[in-house]
């Protein structure tokens, strides 16, 4: 019933608009064509200018109120570089945007049809064409030069002291693994993947023994973090908006991203004036029906807090030795001995 009424009202409005249109048309055809064109161009030209002014005010107002408020403060070293580039690009494109749009609306209004005026026959001017080919080329070259300079820095090799973390996407969660005491991630083999060992970690690899899994990503401030990114099933994307970090997680193709966080969670809570605030890891590549719900909390803490947290973590291998032994009979004895010192 409700729908029927809405549709009925909608149709009624359309019919009224159509009738008005017909009446206006009937009245207007009786007049001289040139005069009619001039009048229409007058009023429509004015309305077009007015709509331009309304849009200009809307855009100026929203930019003024929202620009600072919306952008999350960059919480990493390279995030600041990107922010600077965004600002430069905003100024350059903003100036061009204002000039071209203002000219468009102004010309459309100023040169609207007049019976006794004739347009200027001005088919080309090659000098002007060259000028406005060369200037944009130069400006764009500068923008891309600034951008690529930072681009290669962002994708440079991670510093050797970087903390090694592995984040693997699956429908619809993230699995986080740390390199442990030796800061080296144990090797993986996809053919070893089972329900218990979905990452397919090679337990034979000595480096896997001290690796641990974590429910949260905990990282120390001002220390480089090297994230090894992967996926089990479909493509996901590792996305930390505040840190300006984004990298796809592709099954079968390892990817990586390193960054240096500069603002701790506590500091960000103060900046945002929100005691509840937490950094969050999100998925940014459509991965199925739960794509919108792949959250993982990220905590940036001080060096001391990180050390304390790190000391509490227990090796995944040691915690699950019983299960692993049952599964993989080929484990050598010294590995088992190392894992179960009490049995000696």
């Amino acid at each position: 019933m409700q729908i029927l009424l809405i549709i009925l009202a909608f149709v009624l409005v359309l019919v009224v608009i159509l009738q008005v249109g017909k009446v206006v048309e009937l009245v207007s055809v009786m007049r001289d064509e040139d005069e009619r064109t001039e009048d229409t161009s007058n009023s429509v030209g004015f309305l077009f200018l007015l709509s331009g002014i309304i849009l200009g005010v809307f855009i100026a107002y929203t930019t003024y109120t929202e620009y600072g408020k919306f952008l999350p403060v960059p919480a990493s070293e390279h995030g600041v570089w990107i922010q600077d580039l965004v600002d430069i690009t905003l100024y350059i494109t903003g100036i061009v945007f204002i000039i071209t749009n203002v000219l468009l609306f102004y010309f459309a209004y100023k040169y609207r049809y007049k019976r006794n005026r004739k347009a200027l026959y001005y088919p080309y001017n090659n000098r002007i064409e060259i000028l406005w080919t060369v200037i944009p080329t130069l400006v764009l070259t500068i923008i891309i030069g600034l951008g690529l300079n930072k681009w290669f820095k962002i994708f440079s090799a991670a510093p050797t002291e970087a903390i090694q973390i592995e984040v693997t996407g699956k429908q619809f969660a993230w699995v986080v693994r740390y390199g442990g005491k030796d800061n080296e991630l144990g090797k993986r083999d996809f053919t070893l993947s089972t329900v218990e060992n979905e990452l397919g970690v090679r337990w034979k690899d000595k480096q896997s023994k001290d690796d641990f899994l974590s429910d949260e990503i905990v990282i120390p401030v001002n220390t480089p973090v090297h994230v090894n990114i992967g996926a089990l099933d479909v493509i996901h994307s590792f996305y930390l908006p505040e840190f300006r970090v984004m990298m796809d997680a592709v099954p079968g193709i390892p990817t990586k991203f390193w960054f240096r966080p500069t603002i701790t969670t506590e500091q960000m809570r103060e900046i945002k004036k929100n005691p509840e605030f937490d950094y969050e890891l999100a998925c940014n590549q459509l991965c199925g029906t739960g794509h919108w719900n792949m959250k993982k909390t990220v905590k940036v803490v001080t060096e001391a807090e990180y050390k304390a947290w790190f000391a509490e973590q227990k090796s995944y291998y040691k915690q699950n030795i019983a299960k692993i032994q049952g599964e993989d009979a080929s484990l050598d004895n010294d590995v088992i001995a190392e894992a179960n010192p009490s049995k000696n």
Partner: protein
Amino acid sequence: MVTSATGEHALSMIGAGGHHKETFITKYIFSTDHKMIGKQFLFTGMAWAVIGGLFSVLFRVQLAWPDETFPFLEQIFSNWFDEGHMTPEAYYALVTMHGTIMVFFVLTASLSGTFANFLIPLQIGARDMASPIMNALSYWLFVLSSLIMLASIFLPTGMASAGWTIYPPLSILPQASSGSGMGMTLWLVSMVFFIASQLLAGINYISTVLNLRTKGMLMTRMPLTVWALFFTAVVGLLSFPVLFSAAVLLVFDKGLGTSFYLSDIFIGGKALGYSGGNAILFQHLFWFLGHPEVYIVILPAMGIVSEILSISSRKPVFGYKAMILSLLGIVVLSFLVWAHHMFVTGMNPFLGSVFALFTLLIAVPSSVKVFNWLTTIWRGNIKMTVAAVFSLGFVSMFISGGLTGIWLGNATVDIQLHDTYFVIGHFHLVMGVAAFFGMFAGIYHWFPKMFGRFMNETLGYIHFFITFIGGYLIFWPMHYLGMSGVPRRYYDFNEFHAFNEYHDMNLLISVSAIVVFAAQFIFVINFFYSMKKGRKSTELNPWKANTLEWTTPIEPGHGNWLGELPTVYRWPYDYSKFEEGPDFIPQTVPLTEADIESDKRLLH
């Protein structure tokens, strides 16, 4: 030689200008007349646009009111709602189909299909396309493709829901998404017919432009619409086969167990047997079409707008040769930028830097076009017809959406903005709204040639102003959402407090979207009402334009011209050339002494 022979042949076949008997079926259904085929593409495209628009309104309702229940929507779309809420499955399926329908069926098939078919023969002085049969076949393959896609909407397992970009493995594995079962299969089959349709059409447009120009219609005397449609066909012909190959490999992976795109997949507790494939390979193949595709969408609109701005300003288009060269520049560069959709897929940073460079360079020909449009209307005498305001609106949308491309093309900035709402705002302004504006401008302008009647102007203006302001209200705030990190393709933002602070913006966007969608029915009503009962066109040349289509009878029959084909003596933009006399000189008027004098003066 070839031209006149084919022309004579066509004329003798149809009997002096199309007064032979035609049945309803040969005239309206299995027509080989390029004008009728153009209209058929237009009608089919309008039907698709309503469906595609409706889908977007439905998912905007979900984004604006995620916590409300909509029992009345559930009554109509019972498959997609559960207890009054849209299901995530339905949300992703609707998003996918909205993109597919709008990009391929409306803005590719219908925009090019309508105007290339309708305008190319009329504007170059040909009686029909080079191969009318192939042309009809192209339309009927499009219908077949449409029907298959339409059928997929009603599947119990749901339509394709892996995004319009159908990235594998999601699009291949039914375990990963229920839409990747039969829904995806139908999507692929539909796309195969669609590509075949596009290729037949493209070959036809190209050969028509190259071979069937009338006497005197040099390439350098062609209207910019024809140039733009010609380049569009070239781009389509070179890029669609790559999508075809990508789709074929996807079908193999899906049905035959090959591993072109799949490797190391562990899903549902099982390791699948695929190995050695590369999921990123698909993205390269897809975007090799996908990026030129946005130019396939925008080039015809650019041509239409150049033509209409010149006619309504009563001024030649500024820098005709620069306009053609910039079109050519866009065509060439459009094949060198595809991987800017893939900056964060983990590809080699050096490769990324090359694509970033070319991407920013493609902004140069685009900005040349904008400056030329502005100079075209400068010191003109602009008749504010409905087509003219839509063209002006196009330029504004193209500027606003184009400039944000400079943000996204810069790989470093893209790390922050990739796949956020900023991208949605950018491409909807520049290739969504702008391309639609080009299409609307073209429909309002050539309606008298299509149906011998005018569309109602008042309704046209109402349609324009609501769509213009509404378009900005929908897509402008999306840039702020994107800059604050809100990702696209999220069913609900409640889970993340970083994305959940912008409910007001989402509400504004959704309400504007509903209003704009409703306003499109003003256009639909105007279109069908005017087709039957609009004001009759009584003049041959109502807009006082120079191009050849206005030298045909008001409603041309099959064959277009009654007698001989017209001969062309000049370029199509001699508006306001002389102080005295009418302010336009059609292409069929021979050059005079005064013309030669005037051209000489300009050279110095």
